[in-house]
């Protein structure tokens, strides 16, 4: 009887393969994220020009020069939505960020292209950013816990959170092309 039970257990273990955990992938289309953030009523996009005035601060936040001269965002009253990308280790992580007033309302990993570090997409990590603001030195006013083995992804998401808050703060004065 014992032997039979042992054989059955072995067979069950052999048959029950663990479900592959989704790692890299597109979790939500950016356009769907924008639509969802504005409850279907998406405003016209606006342009943020990265002029000399902002370049230095943005370079400090990102740790490198910005790769483009302007960014697109969507705003209605106090709420603005940013879809930004930053390299984790080797590939871009695309993040959707909703800013309400001067704080983060929501942050979501939309596309993750790396082979590791994807834990950042889970709510246990992204919810840490809820109600985060930036201080005068452009650092977040909250501590965001790291995830072991996902340091570079965590770093990239934190940079984008800071960048979105900075851009939202300055976007009201930024209308003209250089």
């Amino acid at each position: 009887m014992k032997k039979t039970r042992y054989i059955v257990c072995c067979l069950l273990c052999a048959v029950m393969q663990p479900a592959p955990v989704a790692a890299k992938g597109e979790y939500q289309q950016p356009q769907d994220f924008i639509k969802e953030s504005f409850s279907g009523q998406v405003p016209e996009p606006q342009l943020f020009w990265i002029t000399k005035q902002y370049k230095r601060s943005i370079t400090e936040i990102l740790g490198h020069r910005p790769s483009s001269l302007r960014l697109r965002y969507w705003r209605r009253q106090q709420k603005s939505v940013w879809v930004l990308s930053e390299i984790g280790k080797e590939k871009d992580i695309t993040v959707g960020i909703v800013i309400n007033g001067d704080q983060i309302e929501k942050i979501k990993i939309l596309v993750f292209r790396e082979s590791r570090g994807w834990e950042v997409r889970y709510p246990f990590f992204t919810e840490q950013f809820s109600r985060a603001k930036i201080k005068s030195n452009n650092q977040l006013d909250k501590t965001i816990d790291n995830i072991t083995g996902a340091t570079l992804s965590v770093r990239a998401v934190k940079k984008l959170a800071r960048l979105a808050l900075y851009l939202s703060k300055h976007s009201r004065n930024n209308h003209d092309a250089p």
Partner: protein
Amino acid sequence: MTRHKRKPRIKWSSVYQWHRMIGLTAALFVIMLSISGWLLNRTDNMELDKTFIQTSWLLDWYGIKPPSAIISYQVGGHWISQLGDRLYIDQDNIEGHYRQLIGAIQIDQYLVVAVTGQLLVLSRTGELIEKLEGSHGVPAGMRKIGIDQLDRIIIRSSHGFYITDQEFLSWDERQKADAVWSVPQLPPPDLYDSLVERYRGAGLSIERVLLDIHSGNILGSWGKVLVDTMAVLFLLLAISGVWLWAKRKR
């Protein structure tokens, strides 16, 4: 009379001989692993992942060859070219990896380059202003890009035509549209040669070579066998070294 059997004693002098031989054999690999490991720990500071090998024989060893096909468009006094997954404006690389170059146009002060899934907006001097994707309204399945009589940008996609303004803030779908479409051309031979050289010279980073040296991958499967053998020798070195030290202490 009982003869007591003596336990066989390990000749510590022979262990010492083996320890010395293994040490000498492994010395070169220890130095190589130490240097490559030290450098790899400083990849970010020294930007080894952003510095590329230019040496021909090493590029040949890795089999890095440029693709035979080049796609080019002449626009606004510049050449926009694609080799492999890299884009160039004249001889300068446009950062990123791209699938298929579809076309390029000039509109007012911008150069607009269409690649699969994206539109790149460049200044007249080639500086990247913005990358646009589906979330910005770029239609899927782009096939052609052109300009109509009213100087508007027209995109022909697999399911229709799209007209947009210079800032790409709005998109208008149409069933038909007339435009002067962007057409590929053969680049000048000297530009082609220069791009081929640049393509090869940006394919292999120093970090990659160091990783392959450190793991033995640089010599293929034999390299891995060699590194595994060295790992066993290092273990024997450590064990024999500790044994000799303990023996001396007694």
